[in-house]
């Protein structure tokens, strides 16, 4: 049972102005006088009395506000028809525990607890109410999705959602539906009002909440001091527009409302929603990563990897040390196989995307994790398709597994000279493929390169003349440097360095010949005597 304090506020017969006419014993005091809540000081804006006299029915104000003293529920009734124009009475209920929320206001009205009669309130002490505490689960499915999206969008922006409806009872129902759609503590953290007197002011400064704008009583500010025109939604006119991001957030919430049911405040609710609904255009925050570490599940993961920046998002998660359950998610997330196939499958035909995807994934992991998390699962798929290897690190990891090299489509070489490079070089020298793109990188380790090239040349079965031509034409290194390397290799076909000289101009050729003629001649199989004779007599260099 919750103990609820109550107070009646209005104008007393002693002309002391607006004040607390009666309150229960536990009603808070401020500077020794009963607390007069800000929310109970005003009701209809000035000028409303003329509308009432003209026949417009004054609204009944039902508000719920979080305050420093707890959750405050206010029921306001206009008394201008029976008393002085502009006066009203406010019946306030205060839940010091802060558990009551807008959802309770409607019930309390139905139960007759909140006073809604158009009569002068009596003064005197009031009893403390006892209301049973209830637990309810959020029911977002009962409210229109577009309205929920609009509300969540406003919560994310920390601005109020203002609605205008023609029918007051339907407005109340809509308000109740929205209140029931959100987690209980989030509802208690928002303000709710079925009548907003000054929409412009509220839009500018009231913070997150939900309010209803009623014609002709809701007014704009005086003296041009408003904070700008308020954006007021009209649910009666059809679907309410909401930004894409808000719709995504709402969809996340609708997918798993239970996941957010224990949110303790608007701030936490929105943060969790935003963290678990990944925006392809925004980087993930540390807070979001922390939440992902605990809560990443199939749905979240699907959003993670299927967005425009899915790969970058994945990389962020991996970089933060989160373990991604590829294997378990493979069947749980329908989009995942397709996405993974797009990154590694040969049929997708987007080498740039594949290269980028693999680079992002691999740059976040060391070789051990890469082997464990990516390479090994990928190696299991070679029976299904022939994965493309577009990242050197991944290639290195894959090359260490016991899988035939032919199972992959190698678009890059491994870090070091190994079977993959040998295979690529052999394929090139035999004329099946173009020269490997980053073969020149391997020349940094000169000894390994020479050994590897010798090994590859051993395996080449093409005619020596063809091999000589391929090697001589390779543009990966400057000619003189390439010739130096070729001269060090044992298995290079005779005359290959001399053939490579053909890519130089006459001056360059002469310079190389003067310096290295003996070695070039020896590699080409020219006897020393002949070589000397050619040098002195024939060539005169």
């Amino acid at each position, binding site marked *: 049972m919750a103990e609820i304090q109550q107070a009646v506020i209005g*104008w007393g*017969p*002693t*002309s*002391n*102005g*607006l*004040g607390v006419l009666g309150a229960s014993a536990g009603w808070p005091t401020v500077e020794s006088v009963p607390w007069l809540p800000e929310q109970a*000081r*005003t009701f209809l804006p*000035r*000028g*409303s*009395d*003329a509308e009432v*006299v003209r026949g417009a029915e004054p609204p009944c104000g039902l508000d719920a506000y979080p305050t420093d003293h707890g959750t405050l529920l206010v029921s306001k009734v206009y008394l*201008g*028809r029976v*008393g*002085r*124009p*502009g*006066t009203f009475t406010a019946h306030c209920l205060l839940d010091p525990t802060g558990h009551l929320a807008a959802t309770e206001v409607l019930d309390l009205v139905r139960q007759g607890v909140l006073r809604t009669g158009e009569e002068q309130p009596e003064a005197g002490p009031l009893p403390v109410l006892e209301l049973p505490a209830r637990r309810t689960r959020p029911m977002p499915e009962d409210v229109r999705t577009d309205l929920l999206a609009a509300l969540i969008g406003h919560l994310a922006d920390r601005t109020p959602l203002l609605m205008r409806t023609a029918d007051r009872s339907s407005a109340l129902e809509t308000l109740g539906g929205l209140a029931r759609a959100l987690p209980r503590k989030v509802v208690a953290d928002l303000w709710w009002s079925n009548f907003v007197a000054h929409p412009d002011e509220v839009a500018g400064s009231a913070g997150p909440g939900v309010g209803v704008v009623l014609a002709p009583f809701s007014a704009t500010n*005086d*003296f*041009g*001091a408003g904070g700008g025109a308020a954006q007021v939604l009209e649910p009666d006119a059809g679907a309410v527009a909401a930004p894409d991001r808000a719709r995504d957030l709402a969809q996340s919430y609708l997918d798993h409302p239970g996941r957010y049911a224990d949110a303790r405040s608007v701030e936490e609710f929105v943060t969790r929603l935003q963290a678990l609904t990944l925006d392809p255009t925004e980087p993930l925050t540390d807070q979001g990563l922390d939440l992902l570490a605990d809560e990443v599940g199939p749905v979240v993961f699907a959003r993670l990897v299927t967005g425009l920046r899915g790969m970058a998002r994945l990389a962020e998660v991996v970089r933060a040390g989160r373990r991604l359950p590829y294997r378990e998610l493979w069947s749980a997330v329908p989009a995942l196989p397709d996405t993974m196939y797009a990154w590694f499958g040969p049929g997708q035909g987007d080498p740039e995307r594949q290269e980028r995807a693999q680079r992002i994934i691999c740059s976040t992991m060391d070789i051990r994790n890469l082997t464990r998390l990516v390479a090994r699962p990928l190696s299991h798929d070679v029976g299904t398709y022939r994965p493309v290897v577009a990242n050197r690190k991944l290639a290195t990891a894959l090359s260490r597994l016991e899988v035939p090299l032919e199972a992959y489509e190698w678009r890059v070489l491994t870090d070091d000279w190994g079977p993959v490079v040998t295979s690529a070089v052999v394929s090139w020298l035999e004329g099946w493929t173009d020269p490997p793109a980053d073969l020149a990188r391997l020349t940094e380790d000169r000894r390994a390169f020479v050994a590897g090239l010798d090994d590859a040349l051993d395996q080449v079965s093409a005619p020596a003349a063809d091999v000589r031509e391929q090697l001589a034409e390779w543009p990966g290194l400057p000619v003189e440097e390439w010739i130096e390397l070729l001269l060090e290799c044992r298995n290079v076909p005779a005359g290959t360095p001399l053939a490579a000289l053909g890519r130089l101009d006459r001056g360059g050729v002469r310079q190389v010949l003067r310096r290295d003629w003996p070695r070039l001649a020896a590699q080409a199989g020219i006897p020393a005597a002949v070589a000397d004779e050619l040098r002195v007599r024939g060539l005169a260099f």
Partner: protein
Amino acid sequence: MAGYLCPQCAVHYRAGDFTAYTAQSEPWTPPGLSAPQRVARAVRALLGATQKDRDRVRHQHLEELRLGVHHRCPQGHRMPPEFLRRETVPIGLIGPSSVSKSTFLAVLLQRIVGMTDLAPMGMTFTVEEHSRGIYQRDYVTPLAMRRPPEQTRLERTAPLVVRMHRDWAPDDDVNLLFFDAAGEGYRDARSSAELNPFLTVMSGALVFCSPVNLAFGQRSGFALPEGIEGATAPGAGSVVAALQSARTVLDRRRDPIPTGVVIAKCDELAPLEALQPRPGQAIPLDQGFYGNEEGYLSRQSRWPYELLANHGQAILAEVERFSLLTRYHAVSATGCAVNQLGLFERISPIRVHEPLLGLLYDRGMLAGAEALKVGTPQAGQGVHHG
């Protein structure tokens, strides 16, 4: 005048603090003058402006109007047109709740603006452009329906600005800025400061009380209406509290603030007034007032002062602490209370102009009007009889 008053932030700023913008919110600066032009202008100012000079000024003024040039204070508030050309005189209505401050203001404005009651005295009033909405909504419409103005909310209310034109000073119009806050806001100094930012800058105060704030003994020959007599009447305490909280807010003000103490709803005191030598007498609203202002105002102050001296000594004492430049008025905004339907049977104001006239006189704003009294009737006679 310390500067120009922003009617929204209630702060005086120097002219240079304001920034001018066009209607498209683009910064605007007046066309610059070369050094010879400035010299020529100074010489002409000494020798007297020519027609060409006046044409140039008019042309520039028209250009500013065409562009919608307006000024904004350093806080970004848009100043009403012409506010930087005229003095602004804030007048505060001080008093507890339900002493008919708003009703008085509504009726006064209706009389001086709508019905031009003071035109025979050479004064005409128009509601400033930005205040017209408030004027129409809060004051004109309720009176047109014979309803009292709505209860003023316990919130910061917008001021109402009226432009006063005086025939004897045609180029020197004045803005009268009335601010009317909820009576509950005067309960303590903190509320007063929060809800009535104009208190600290006001140039004139109207302090309100009503018969329910006075104490009538058995032998006074008068009793309050049934229902609010005796122990249920609010008494003088709320008025004293309002004055004290306003005085606390004004603690740093050293200049005397012309103050009019208004005993409102004086129609309820008609039996007491009937005992006076000349009951119901009011100041004539014509130029006969000029020349003997002090005499008229002092005569009108006599009975209300006696009322307070006999039945509201606490109020009187607090008023004297509040200001040394004080006059007393007994007025009734409507001349009657509302009937059972919440409507006024008729609206017959009693002496509602006098508090304003007293303030204007004490502020020295009627200086020079006597010349009008000498000149105009003779000219009028010439027109009719010459």
